[in-house]
């Protein structure tokens, strides 16, 4: 670990990976909640048009890509809000238009479509100091918004109409979310690349949803997974000489795959400790079946597993449950 930190290009690469790992899941949590998981992918194509334009004009690619991406995201969102983008057709036209424009413009510029490859797949190790400054500034903006406005963004992305009746400017918040997603995508073209950034917005969130309960916990857990896999993947790719973007995404997917069996185990543990509530269906009272003569005295720690059953405790006894009732036990 010390060794790779001695290379300035690796220092920049690791910081860029860290920042991407922070912001992609932070904004991704809201994008996934709105069921726009593939938005990032589409915006990646639009960002390519920006890169093509930058190659043609000789400008720095990141600012132009950010601008193109935000413009594309806002257009798509407004079309969606007005009900114009019925079906996926409108979006597809915009996204593939972006891809075609990127290839076309880079062709005219003389660089050729090959020049786009480093943006498609990321090029962590060529991140410059000025790239890093821009990424850092936008990271602050994205984190302040996604964490500071979490209650508002949560409300508009889970229940639009209710958020409206709370006086929230729902459309404005939606535009803010897609714009921030667009910025994230454009920034990530230097780290994991445009084709893979959508994965870093979605996969850590999907894994976090399996591992923890609640929206706030999901947001924080997703950021944790994002940072860990991004930095871990970037560092590991240095040693095995692999493409860092691909490594990062594969790591995130590995975490996601692992989250399935873990969530299964967590669920089983939960289910074993609390049985379904009785409180809510008083009408359905457990039939009163008294156990046969039962000399054993159940008590916490008597050796029979105790489970909470609504308002009382049952003791699991040879495949059935005993509940203390007056001087005898009931079968539950």
């Amino acid at each position, binding site marked *: 670990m010390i060794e790779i930190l001695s290379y300035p290009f690796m220092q920049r690469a690791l910081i860029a990976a860290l920042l991407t790992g922070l912001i992609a899941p932070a904004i991704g949590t809201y994008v996934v*909640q709105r069921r726009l998981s593939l938005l990032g992918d589409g915006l990646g194509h639009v960002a390519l048009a920006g890169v093509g334009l930058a190659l043609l004009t000789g400008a720095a690619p990141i600012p132009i890509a950010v601008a193109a991406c935000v413009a594309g995201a806002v257009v798509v969102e407004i079309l969606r809000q007005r009900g114009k983008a019925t079906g996926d057709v409108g979006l597809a036209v915009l996204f593939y238009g972006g891809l075609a424009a990127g290839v076309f413009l880079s062709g005219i510029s003389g660089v050729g479509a090959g020049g786009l490859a480093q943006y498609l797949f990321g090029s962590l190790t060529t991140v410059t100091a000025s790239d890093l400054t821009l990424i850092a500034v936008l990271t602050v903006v994205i984190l302040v918004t996604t964490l500071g406005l979490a*209650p508002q963004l949560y409300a508009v992305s*889970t229940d639009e*109409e209710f958020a409206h009746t709370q*006086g929230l400017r729902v459309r404005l918040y939606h535009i803010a979310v897609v714009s921030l997603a667009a910025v994230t995508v454009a920034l990530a073209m230097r780290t994991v690349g445009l084709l893979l950034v959508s994965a870093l917005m979605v996969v850590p969130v999907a894994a976090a949803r399996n591992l923890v309960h609640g929206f706030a916990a999901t947001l924080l857990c997703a950021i944790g997974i994002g940072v860990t896999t991004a930095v871990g993947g970037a560092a590991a790719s240095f040693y095995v000489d692999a493409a860092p973007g691909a490594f990062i995404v594969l790591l995130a997917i590995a975490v996601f795959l692992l989250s399935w069996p873990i969530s299964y185990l967590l669920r089983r543990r939960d289910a074993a400790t609390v049985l379904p509530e009785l409180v809510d269906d008083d009408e359905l009272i457990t039939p009163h079946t008294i156990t046969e003569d039962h000399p054993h005295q159940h008590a916490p720690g008597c050796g029979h597993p105790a489970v909470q059953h609504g308002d009382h405790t049952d003791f699991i006894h040879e495949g059935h449950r005993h509940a203390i009732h007056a001087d005898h036990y009931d079968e539950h």
Partner: protein
Amino acid sequence: MLVEPQTVLAAADLTVERGGLPVLRGVSISVRTGEAVALLGGNGSGKSTLIRTLLGLLPHRRGTVTLFGSPVRDFRDWARIGYVPQRSLTTLGGSKVKEVVAAGRLARRRLFRPLSRADRDTVQKAIALVGLSEHRDTDVARLSGGQQQRLLVARALAGEPDLLVLDEPTSGVDLEHQRVLAEVLVRLLAAGTSVLVVLHEVGSLAGLIDRAVVLSDGRIVHDGPLGDLGQHRHGMGGHQHDHAESLDDHDRSAETLLGGAIEP
């Protein structure tokens, strides 16, 4: 001196179109302070459309909507309104109960400020009022349908509203949940809250309804006491008597009510 009760919600000559077809035609409706109004009608009669237009969620082509004295377009005092949408329309899975209910405080919160202690206390109280205290940290997806319905009521109550608007809060939930809901509404009405509730059938809430408005094919065909529709009217304690029996009664009378509503 007799003071005219204040009107919290009023709509006049409302016409709403969806997809080019008129869904509401010349509808006028009002709710006064402390009043419980039931909005009744069959499927497709425009009940939900009316509720959502009154809240400014859908645009109207003609007519006026006034909330607490100001036109719905200019209305800003959203903390005074608590909306309980239809359960099927929400996508809250993955959230904890207390997170969902806390969203009901948003109209009273300022940007970039964390939840205050007072906010937290109000959220806890709203959860307790609908009997979900044990489920504060439960994932919404793991609640039963009736519990989810009560959760949506708690979220609306967390904002301490003066007007509660509920869209079919009793559909598809069992008697126990309906009883809890009726009790909560009785307490709110006693405290001076106004209630506008969309119902498919009057059912267990009949005892607390002051006035019924019946929609049929986008027009209002009745506006007056439930009793005028041949409904046996219960007192405020109507929800306390034996449930299995009274619900049957209500179901039958609700059918006559809706059947009769078609020919005003």
